């Protein structure tokens, strides 16, 4: 308990100093309530099944500051995107953002502004109770809600190019940010979002991000999450997806940064015939680097289908955790669920804990799952080299081959390109 007290001390003072005079009273009240809930709940411990392999105890002893506002000299993103919102150390940067190509009836704005201008629209989404008990960092995020993105794509609207949300951490150390993103695709809307977290000269900081995605009926929503934080950073994320009838969601997580990264992804199928395809890729290259993907797919409605394909490559003494759980409620007839997780170990000291899980209360379901952990095929490496291909290039070719399956069907060339660059940078180490 005393450890939690240490944490709450700096949190408390941060919380008080972070109180914004601008915020409406309902939001103030919500934040107070969420803060109390966090203090009661405390940090998760490894005794909890959902946090068994990821130790966050060190956070108790670390005091993070709220960041001060900085103006960066230039942006570090290899993605060229025509529509973007940029956040520097959690703070919205109007100058760096570009929304000129956005269809006029789409709302894309920093959360604080959306609360001012579209209070009635934002409020119900913001006040939704998330799973703080399981994921207490969400309480903390709500308590500190500072900035983030509010995106509202109206009925039938097709956003022509991906929307890039860039969270850049720079020129400061030991700070914490709490981005909160709310993304709503109304009926038959179509949109692609890229949420990127990256760093440039920032160390030991902590990103605690919550992103909520709402796909209304027949909406098509693609969500790419690129986590490329500095390798001393902590990144804890909670992504919640709410799907209505006939909605179609793709998610893709690529994790190559952070010392500790935890990605929670929850899919809720509320209505029938919804589909969600989840993909993930983690590329770990540092001793003590730890990436944990926890996925929960809640098949609460019949005729829904979900696929999950995660692949990881690990080097040095890095660790990966994969836990993918499919839960099929009684009555979720014709549920179709696939899960697979494959890992490639480049060193003897890397470690993977993988657990695809099924919990099924309905007979009429089709579920398959599988996981593998293996080494690089030495014969294949020799074969390539024996044909004159340099060892480095041969390794790159083989790592690309390993992840080829995940890269399939990524239509957007800039995203493909970005991911390939990350892989190339990784393989050439």
């Amino acid at each position, binding site marked *: 308990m005393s450890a939690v007290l240490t944490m709450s001390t700096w949190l408390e003072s941060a919380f008080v100093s972070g109180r914004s005079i601008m915020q409406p009273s309902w939001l103030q009240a919500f934040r107070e309530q969420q803060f109390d809930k966090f203090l009661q709940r405390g940090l998760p411990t490894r005794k909890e099944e959902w946090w068994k392999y990821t130790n966050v105890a060190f956070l108790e002893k670390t005091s993070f500051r709220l960041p001060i506002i900085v103006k960066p000299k230039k942006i570090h993103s290899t993605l060229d995107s025509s529509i973007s919102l940029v956040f520097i150390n959690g703070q919205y940067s109007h100058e760096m953002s570009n929304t000129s190509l956005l269809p006029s009836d789409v709302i894309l704005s920093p959360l604080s502004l959306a609360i001012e201008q579209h209070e009635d629209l934002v409020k119900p989404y913001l006040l939704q109770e998330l799973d703080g008990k399981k994921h207490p960092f969400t309480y903390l995020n709500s308590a500190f809600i500072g900035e983030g993105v509010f995106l509202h794509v109206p009925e039938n609207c097709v956003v022509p190019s991906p929307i890039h949300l860039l969270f850049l951490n720079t020129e400061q150390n030991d700070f914490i940010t709490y981005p909160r993103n709310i993304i709503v695709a109304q009926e038959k809307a179509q949109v692609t979002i890229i949420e990127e977290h990256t760093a440039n000269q920032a160390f030991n900081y902590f990103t605690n991000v919550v992103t909520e995605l709402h796909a209304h009926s027949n909406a098509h929503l693609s969500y790419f999450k690129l986590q490329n934080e500095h390798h001393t950073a902590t990144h804890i994320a909670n992504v919640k997806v709410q799907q209505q009838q006939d909605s179609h969601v793709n998610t893709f997580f690529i994790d190559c940064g952070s010392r500790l990264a935890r990605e929670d992804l929850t899919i809720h199928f509320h209505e029938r015939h919804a589909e969600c395809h989840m993909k993930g890729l983690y590329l770990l290259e540092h001793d003590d680097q730890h990436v944990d993907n926890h996925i929960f797919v809640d098949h609460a409605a019949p005729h829904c289908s979900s696929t999950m394909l995660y692949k990881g490559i690990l080097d040095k003494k890095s660790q990966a955790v994969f836990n993918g759980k499919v839960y099929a409620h009684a009555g979720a007839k014709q549920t179709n669920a696939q899960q697979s997780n494959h890992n490639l170990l480049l060193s003897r000291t890397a470690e993977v804990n993988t657990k695809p899980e099924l919990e099924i209360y309905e007979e009429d379901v089709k579920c398959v799952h599988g996981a593998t952990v293996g080494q690089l*095929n030495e*014969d*294949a490496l*020799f*074969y*390539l*080299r*024996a*044909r*004159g*291909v*340099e*060892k480095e*290039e*041969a390794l790159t*070719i*083989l790592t*690309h*081959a*390993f992840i*080829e*399956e995940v890269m399939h069907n990524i239509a957007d060339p800039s995203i493909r390109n970005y991911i390939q660059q990350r892989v190339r940078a990784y393989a050439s180490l």
Partner: protein
Amino acid sequence: MLIIKNLHATIQDEKQKTKSILRGINLHVKAGEVHAIMGPNGSGKSTLANILAGREDYQVTQGEILLDGQNIMELAPEARATAGLFLAFQYPVEIPGVNNMYFLKAAVNSVRKHNQLPPLDAMDFLTLIKSKMKEVGMDEKFLSRAVNEGFSGGEKKRNEILQMLMLEPKLAILDETDSGLDIDALQSVAKGVNSMRDPKRSIVVVTHYQRLLSYIVPDVVHVMVKGQIIKSGGKELALELEEKGYGWLNENVG
């Protein structure tokens, strides 16, 4: 072209016991010559071929290997390949996810780079590879498949020969490229190999069958038994082996 002097090699088996495989190999292949190596299963033929190509699983405890006068023992496999050594594997490995054409192009261009040639552009490469595929009787659809993945035994062997034709090595070692081939395939493989014969190029074929040697006529035939070359002779030796087997040679083993 290739000189092997008193080569000894061992391997650590699963129980970490050291097993000696090559026990003093001597071989001299001159430029323009074709040599055949025959010998019973497990005598060390593939081990020799793999050591030549730079496989690091074996420990070379004694001896040297000279390619064109250069000691290649310290060279990485890719450096040996770019220096002109080619091994057609007995068991070509399947590499899922790597496109066959992409692979061939990477191989050809790294050899070209070593020879200070610019990389082939896509069009030139395609024209070249299509003509070579015709030569070995391979359908163009194999270009879009993953390297050797799901290829039949014979298709894999043809793919090896295709690679050889594309890379134009100085020294080609063919490890049982004839095994598992039907008559037509055997003929097109032999045709491919014969088209490579050149006064500046040497070929070593490892085989169990005289049949291949009637298409690719060797200058010298060696018999390897238990890690040693116990007899060498002209092309008639292969016929004699076919007739009598290896038993009659055993008294010569030291």
